[in-house]
């Protein structure tokens, strides 16, 4: 694919957090050298267990943190580090985020219209209140709510509806990239399906590019065009979903895939889970690096390990 199709590029991103002072000082390497590209119109799935750094990656991209090192390019422009007022506007409007918790991510003292329209007002994309209302109503219909909802407060809505408001807020500035951080994991099963179907439909209507962060592999597989598996701050394997699920190479990916329980009792009772023990990697002699095992399928292993697992 042509390079100019790349919408977001993350190069060797590192995000360390410090805690404590003096002798007790600890450095947590939340994200430790992550690189990936997201092309226009693509849904990029980032999976991993809690604490692996997937949320931190998403947050670093929308500039909630100042990265320790590494570069983030959006539309070919370097956006990590100091930006001019104009570029900052471009980024805040062009990248939007959907959060996991639909309760704490909406301001309880603002009406739905204020919540959704805030971005438009700040970025001065509307002239007056009438235009604002018009735009909010337009977007709120897209997410399956109605016009009479716009003057209500968040507490009047159910979890699923609140997540719809969060999605409408992200969509209203017509962003190029949406970062969806576990958008369905706080919802009930029957509501999850509603939201996933809606995101799928919106993806087509708006031609969205999405960075989809989740821990649920079946959801990520269903939703993404490309999947990267993160472990301990690093991407350990990435591939197209079918390739990754049918032909996993890294031991962690294998363990992760085997751990998903399937709603099929006869199969489920007879099988064993694979456990992953990170101490099997001995990187004292050989250093691990990214290898391309087949077109588009990358694994982070040392050369001898690669030989062992790739069979």
């Amino acid at each position, binding site marked *: 694919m042509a390079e100019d199709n790349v919408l977001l590029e993350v190069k060797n991103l590192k995000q360390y957090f410090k805690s404590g002072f003096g002798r007790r000082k600890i450095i947590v390497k939340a994200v430790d050298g992550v690189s990936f590209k997201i092309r226009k119109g693509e849904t990029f799935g980032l999976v991993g267990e809690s604490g692996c750094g997937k949320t931190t990656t998403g947050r670093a991209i929308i500039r909630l943190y100042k990265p320790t090192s590494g570069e983030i390019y959006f539309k070919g422009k370097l956006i990590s580090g100091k930006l001019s007022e104009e570029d900052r506007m471009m980024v805040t409007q062009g990248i939007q985020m959907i959060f996991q918790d639909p309760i704490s991510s909406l301001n309880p003292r603002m009406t739905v219209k204020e919540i959704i329209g805030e971005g438009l007002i700040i970025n001065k994309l509307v002239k007056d209140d009438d235009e604002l209302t018009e735009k909010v109503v337009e977007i709120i219909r897209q997410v399956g709510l109605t016009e009479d909802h716009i003057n209500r407060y968040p507490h009047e809505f*159910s979890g699923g509806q609140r997540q719809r408001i969060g999605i409408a807020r992200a969509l209203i500035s017509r962003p190029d990239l949406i970062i969806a951080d576990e958008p369905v994991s706080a919802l009930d099963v*029957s509501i999850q*399906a509603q939201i996933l*179907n809606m995101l799928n439909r919106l993806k087509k209507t708006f031609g969205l590019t999405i960075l989809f962060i989740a*821990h649920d592999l079946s959801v990520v597989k269903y939703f993404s065009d490309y999947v990267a598996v993160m472990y301990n701050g690093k991407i350990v394997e990435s591939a197209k979903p079918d390739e990754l699920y049918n032909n996993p190479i890294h031991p962690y990916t294998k363990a992760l895939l*085997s751990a*998903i*329980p399937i709603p099929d009792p006869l*199969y489920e009772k007879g099988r064993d889970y694979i456990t992953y023990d990170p101490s099997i990697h001995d990187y004292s002699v050989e250093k691990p690096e990214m290898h391309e095992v087949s077109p588009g399928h990358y694994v982070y292993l040392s050369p001898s390990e690669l030989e062992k697992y790739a069979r």
Partner: protein
Amino acid sequence: MRTISTEKILEVRDLTISFNTYAGKLQAVRGVSFDLHKGETLAIVGESGSGKSVTNKALMGILPRTARIEKGQAFYKGRDLLSMTEKEWEKVRGSEIAMIFQDPLSSLNPVTRVGKQIAEIFILKHKLPRKEAKRRAIELMDAVGIPDPEKRYNQYPFQFSGGMRQRIVIAIALASDPEILICDEPTTALDVTIQAQILKIIDRLQKEKQLSVIFITHDLGVVAHMADRVAVMYAGKIVEYGTAEDIFYNPQHPYTWGLLSSMPDMETEEGEELYVIQGSPPNMLYPPKGDAFAERNPYALNIDFKEEPPMFKVSDTHYAATWLLHPKAPKIERPAALQRRIEKSLKRAKGV
């Protein structure tokens, strides 16, 4: 396949619980009946607010003060748990019926060493001397898979990871050698790889100790892994129950259909429209007339809006509360995607 003992250890009959709120009477549980056999795992599945946790809190005698048990009995060893006094409860709760909660951090005491929290039970319930209690506690920590238990004995809960904390909670629950173990979403807060380990431990300990387990969850994959029998709850009622095979391969209630087909699995094609249960659960302050699921049920019949369906018998082990099973009801096929999945599963089972 394990054979399930027919000896009933717990019989719940027509349990009805309501909450007094400022807005009025909230009917959380509306006539729930089920049996728990010795040595089996009964899974209770349902969305939040379906009354599954409230039912089990009643069985532990830990309902909040605003709750009222309107009617019903729960027989355990010939005694009705629901009419016991607090004094009598103290002999049963924790010793004969134990519980594991969803959040392992908030169910441990943050300022007491974990080993002491386990040993406490041996001292208080079994009246063992301190030294002996410590030895038993370390043994138990080893049994639930905590590495280096002697060293870990003297640590505090914050020094443990989520999975390790849940192991401690399991150890505490098992210290008193209970007959019944109630697990309220024990793995929801954990990662899949850790979840797999915890499920394995519960499974093994259950077989060793012949425990009867009530497993509450909304994850159908976990249910398939753990359960011998399944009860599906919706709006305070059990709408379908049967063996795990009955529920997964021959579901009868449209709500069960919805639950089974609404989540993508590893075989769902990308971009394929998911089956959706429209709308949201009813407000139990004003439970709807007729079947509570009728509003969201694409297969609802006229009678669903007027009268609540009774439990229809599908087989000796399988019951479902839907008018679709009435002899006069029109024949309705299950959603195609679900039917495909069931056939695939059965084929896979035959192949193995």
